[in-house]
């Protein structure tokens, strides 16, 4: 006598060739899950942190680089890259929608470790100068929209846009405090500027962070929303591009005997 499982019923309904796993295989599969999770965490943390430091670099690193033009555009655009690729892998192969949140969480953990141990512990820079930005608001929204829509196109348009657009207001919660003005020997600076000035950086002179040179400042002194809107647009495109990079990385190609 045989019993019909829910999975088998689903298979029958779908007319596919799915064979449910035995309880033993399920247990082994679950154990393997944790091996894969551990390996993924290590590889993803290292790779994404390296990628982000090489691309967003100083803009994300220092308090006095978090400006209202480049930082707002550059950081989310460089961060949504891995999110798009991991989204493809986890969603297309496993129907798991947490790729973006996983990526940005691992990135921020790596950033805190490097900055706290290396730059604060060994080099004595204050933590407030080194605090990394986070991408949680946009990543959570992106994950949720992928699941709710089930579409990478919709995820790119809505989720990608939110990833870029929520970055600045999400971080302003802690960053605003450093944009309070101070007077330094007759010159007005923000606290962020002065904290950066005080803490000597031999290889990061003041002139290379003179970044606000464009004409965005003519937008009624509201450059940040304009930059955020631009970041939202770019994030959509970059998300789609990296979705396909994820596809390229996660598909197995076989060489046929004819090709040998």
């Amino acid at each position, binding site marked *: 006598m045989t019993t019909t499982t829910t999975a088998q019923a*689903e*298979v029958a309904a*779908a007319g596919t060739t799915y064979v449910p796993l035995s309880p033993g295989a*399920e247990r082994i599969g*679950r154990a393997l*899950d944790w091996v*894969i999770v551990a390996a993924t965490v290590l590889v993803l943390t290292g790779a994404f942190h390296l990628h982000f430091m090489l691309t967003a670099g100083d803009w994300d690193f220092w308090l006095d680089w978090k400006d209202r033009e480049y930082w707002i555009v550059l950081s989310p655009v460089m961060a949504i890259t891995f999110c798009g690729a991991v989204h493809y892998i986890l969603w*297309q*192969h496993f*129907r798991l*929608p*947490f790729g973006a*949140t996983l990526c*940005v*969480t691992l990135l*921020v953990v790596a950033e*805190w470790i490097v900055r706290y141990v290396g730059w604060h512990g060994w080099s*004595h*820079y*204050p933590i*407030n100068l080194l*605090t990394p930005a*986070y991408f*949680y*608001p*946009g990543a*959570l*929204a992106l994950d*949720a*929209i992928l*699941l*709710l829509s089930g579409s990478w196109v919709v995820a790119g348009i809505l989720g990608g846009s939110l990833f870029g657009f*929520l970055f600045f*207001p999400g971080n*302003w*919660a*802690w960053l*605003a*405090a*450093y*944009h*309070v*003005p*101070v007077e*330094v*020997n007759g010159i007005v*600076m923000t606290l*962020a*500027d*002065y904290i950066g000035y005080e*803490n*000597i950086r*031999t*290889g990061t*002179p*003041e*002139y*290379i962070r*003179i970044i*606000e040179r464009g004409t965005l400042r003519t937008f009624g002194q509201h450059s940040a929303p304009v930059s955020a809107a631009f970041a939202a647009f770019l994030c959509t495109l970059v998300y789609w591009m990296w979705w396909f990079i994820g596809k390229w990385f996660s598909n197995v190609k076989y060489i046929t005997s004819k090709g040998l």
Partner: protein
Amino acid sequence: MKNLFNRLFTIISASAVLAGFAAQPAFAHGEKAQEPFLRMRTVQWIDVAVTKTNLAVNDETVITGKVHFMTNEHWPHSAAKPELAFLNVSAAGPVMVRKASFVNGVNMVNSAKFDLGADYAFEIRLKASWPGKWHVHPMINVKDAGPLVGPGTWVEVTGSHADFKDEMKTLTGETVNLETYGTENNVKWHVIWGLIAVAWLLWWLAKPLFHSRYAKVKAELGDTLITGGDRMVSAVVLVVALGLTYYGYSAAEARYPVTLPLQSATATIPHSPSLVEGVKLVLDRATYRVPGRAMEMDVSITNTSSKPFRVGEFNTAGVRFLNPEVGVMDELTKQYPSYLLAEKGLTVSDNTPIQPGETRKLHLVAQDAAWEVERLSSLIYDPDSRFGGVLYMYDTDGKRLITEVGGTLVPTFAGT
């Protein structure tokens, strides 16, 4: 074979342990590694002094001096001109914090344009933050040319960093500790968002992940893996992400109604009187004798001042070659870092005073181990084989006159 392997393993292990014991902290910042042409032909540091070299945490010290930008004739073609440059400090990080800096009295929190051939007086105020022995240099960062490091001085700081105070009053009336300001709030927001993210991840990690899901997805049953509960949680996460972002932004705007964008101005520095006066110099020939660590210069010097003078010093890349016959061991010189001071390093063929209007040919020899120790001797391997520096002349009243010297350089090797 096994015996050999064991021996090798023991030797390597023991060496590694011994190397660990023998390792010393690194204090320098690679200043000697900079190409000689950059150190000799860009800026010359004059009268650099540090007011206090033994400090307790919270004490302040001031680096003062003058910096002469070499004229276009000597400034290397491969280095960008100082169209935008910044008065900086080379130190082991923020072991001393910079409270203020000035060039010709102008606040140098910003960068500025500097002119070739001009002289600038600078002042850098530093406050001791971390105990230790630190090597501190004045430095000019030139955009597209990089850092140009001045002479370094050892500064010893005692006490505990726990006692360090660094407060400032904002224009909105709040007094803040710059060392810790806002850190608690930064961590709070990271933790709040991090907990939400972890909760979202745990929702999924609690389910079977890869093995069984992969099989279902490949059987085109992937959509059956998403439950009503998953959709509900996703909707909640989306609302929380949007709501918390709005709340955080609004709360920050309410708490800090007055904020400015990061500042990006540049400074304008007025000219100060030129240090280069009263002397006209023509370089006839210069050689660097490798085995003798000596630079020899044949020069024609014309006294265009009103008083007789003698050649007292050759200064390049922060190394000072003094002519002992002239005797310029003043207070500033006595305090100068000894490893950059060649007290008997300059020999002049004729030390009798050069009279006003007189032109005299002289043979100068600047000789000292500093050429090797400061890695300036490698200038003979530079692609353009040129050198630069300044000569100090002292008149009968003790007044100092300065002139640039520089040009092509021919190396002479052993046996030539």
